[in-house]
């Protein structure tokens, strides 16, 4: 089995495909999309840590939103060593263990790096910080101390992820471009499906097609009111891999060469999904109650986009889909 951790190289070094379209696409995506996205996230995580240490609660909220946006844009490209090392789970885990955070704020135990590292994924990372800065408004010293500790942990993980992708770091082995493409396309499909289901359908009460009352508690980025933006930004992260960096190549170059008729439907379905998600009349937790039809429209558009990726893009890239977005229950 191909270890995903070696993909990077694929992306970073990609010596095997010198001069080829696939090699050029992977190099451009690595240097122009994936690495810059991780650098940006590490930078935003540092700004969040500084805001937590020195800024006002409003500064922390702004910094959190910027970090969240940056992470959303990274989601579709999480095929590298950060996934193998489960670093992404340390950054983004749902639901938040709110009770655990309250206990930590009430206790007097140490909040050093080791203590934070030992916390479960639900008690740290972006969503835990969101809970603190948007729900708890940490002004008390202990809450502030917890926020700073969590922000430092987030920054450390973000820097670790970035460093894993920096050229010359990590000692990545060569991976065939085909394997890299497989992983990328599979990941894009998984993220599109997960975004449709987890961010829209499940909160709406439509799990696997089941109709049930809305469940606002399942809405992601609810405390910050950025639930709608989370959907849109994640879609944009997928499309960034398709389009490639400015002046560089993305997966669309392979589609254009192999089956140009497939390019327009993929782009149109993305635009439709982004437009429907952006047009939700309110944050998702309110839309699922007040405008369920609009949420269903957005969900259907996201599903169609995912179908385009799973068929049209997978066909043009000659990818075999093999990944399920999440375990069944």
């Amino acid at each position: 089995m191909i270890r995903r951790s070696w993909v990077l190289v694929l992306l970073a070094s990609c010596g095997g495909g010198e001069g080829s379209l696939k090699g050029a696409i992977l190099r451009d995506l690595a240097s122009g999309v994936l690495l810059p996205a991780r650098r940006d996230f590490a930078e935003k995580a540092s700004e969040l840590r500084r805001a937590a240490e020195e800024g006002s609660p409003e500064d922390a909220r702004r910094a959190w939103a910027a970090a969240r946006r940056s992470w959303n844009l990274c989601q579709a490209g999480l095929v590298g060593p950060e996934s193998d090392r489960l670093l992404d789970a340390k950054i983004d885990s749902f639901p938040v263990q709110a009770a655990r955070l309250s206990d930590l704020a009430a206790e007097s135990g140490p909040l050093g790096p080791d203590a934070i590292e030992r916390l479960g994924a639900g008690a740290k990372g972006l969503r835990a910080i969101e809970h603190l800065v948007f729900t708890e408004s940490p002004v008390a010293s202990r809450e502030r101390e917890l926020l700073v500790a969590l922000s430092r942990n987030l920054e450390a993980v973000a820097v670790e992820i970035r460093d894993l992708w920096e050229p010359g770091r990590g000692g990545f082995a060569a991976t065939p471009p085909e394997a890299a493409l497989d992983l990328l396309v599979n990941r894009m499909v998984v993220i599109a499906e997960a975004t449709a289901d987890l961010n829209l359908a499940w909160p709406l009460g439509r799990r696997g097609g089941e109709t049930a009352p809305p469940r606002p508690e399942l809405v992601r980025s609810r405390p910050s009111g950025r639930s709608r933006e989370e959907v849109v930004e994640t879609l944009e992260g997928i499309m960034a891999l398709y389009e490639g960096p400015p002046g560089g190549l993305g997966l669309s170059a392979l589609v254009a060469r192999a089956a140009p008729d497939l390019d327009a439907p993929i782009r149109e379905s993305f635009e439709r999904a982004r437009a429907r998600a952006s047009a939700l009349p309110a944050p998702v937790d309110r839309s699922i109650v007040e405008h369920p039809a609009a949420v269903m429209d957005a969900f259907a558009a996201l599903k169609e986009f995912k179908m385009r990726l799973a068929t049209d893009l997978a066909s043009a890239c000659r990818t075999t889909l093999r990944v399920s977005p999440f375990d069944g229950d």
Partner: protein
Amino acid sequence: MRRLLAPVDPASLVVFRAAFGLLMFVLVVRYFAHGWIDAQFHEPSCFFPWPGFEWVRPWPRPWMHVHFAALGALALLVAAGLCTRPAALLFGAGFTYVHLVDRTNYLNHYYLAGLLCLLLAIAPPCRLGPRSAAPAWTVWLFRFQVGAVYFFAGLAKLQEDWLLRAQPLRLWLAHAADVPLAGPLLARPETAAAFSWAGMLFDMAVPFLLLCRRTRAIAFAALVAFHAVTAVLFPIGLFPWIMVVGALVFLPPGWPRAWFRSPVPALPAALPPPRPALRVLLGAWVLLQVAIPLRHGPVRTEQLWSEEGAHFSWRIMVAEKTGHARFTARDRAGRIWELRAGDYLTPVQEHFMAFQPDLVRDFARFLARDLRGKGAGPVEIRAEAWATMNGRPARRLVDLVLRDPDFSTFSDIAGPRGS
């Protein structure tokens, strides 16, 4: 008729049999080496048997491995010319059994291998010796079988996608850009168009060019080059080499003796004609091998889309399809839940199921029975599948509802250009 009954030097058939037997041995070794025995017969919890063969199931562990080991031994017997006819018959039967288990394992060259095994079992055994001879009809029988593959493969390319859109070659060759030196040229759309037309002409013409003495040498050289290129460019396993070995029967029957400069045998004046039953069998064989590929008439894009007549017709490499199927169950209380094909199927099975309407239906039936067996009570299964073919944007392929208890289906199959 007299030409068919005339005795000929069996040397070319002997070489063909030995090479074919060795290829079958390699084929079996590949099953072990790649772990395909477990992957295809032990890992799936659902199989797609052929209609009428639903009773065929893989042997329990470790007997499938034993089965393949026996196939390997039989292949070596065929290669060595020991007990050729029973060995070929048993290999053909054993290999056919393996592929009756699951339709997603179908490959054209596996089908061809089965047919050639049966022909080896039917034809008189060939041995090299100072007085050995074979009736000419045996050579012609193999020539017919191999030639039919080429001809019908060429016929299947006489359609819009192949000739006018250069698909699916354009899709595939776009991924050949990594090939040293020629890569950038191969990835050009013009190359795909040229290859498409050349491939069609080659397939339709090569059996006849091989039969003609004046063009035989150049045709055989082109054939070897053609299959070598396809072996490099496409992941099609042993297919190119089976065809190269098969084409050996088009060479003059005594070519191995000329090659190795061994003495030419003294052929008898005549050989006994085949028995009437064998004549009937051979006639039926030829008729069936012509009728089966033509059973749905000329290949149309719609047929490629619906998979109508896709099997046993030598439609080789004419469609690149990718599908995506979704299954949901609904019980009497109105509860609906999604069923993941990956929980039951291997990735390969899921890949092939998703673009074949009949397999989507069969899997929906399997899910309904599985849920009922697990005590879910009466359920309704909905299956939706979308697919893309030959670079066309994906369209709905299947949308059906399967209702308990009779599992009757209501399907709606859209055309390749959409509704």
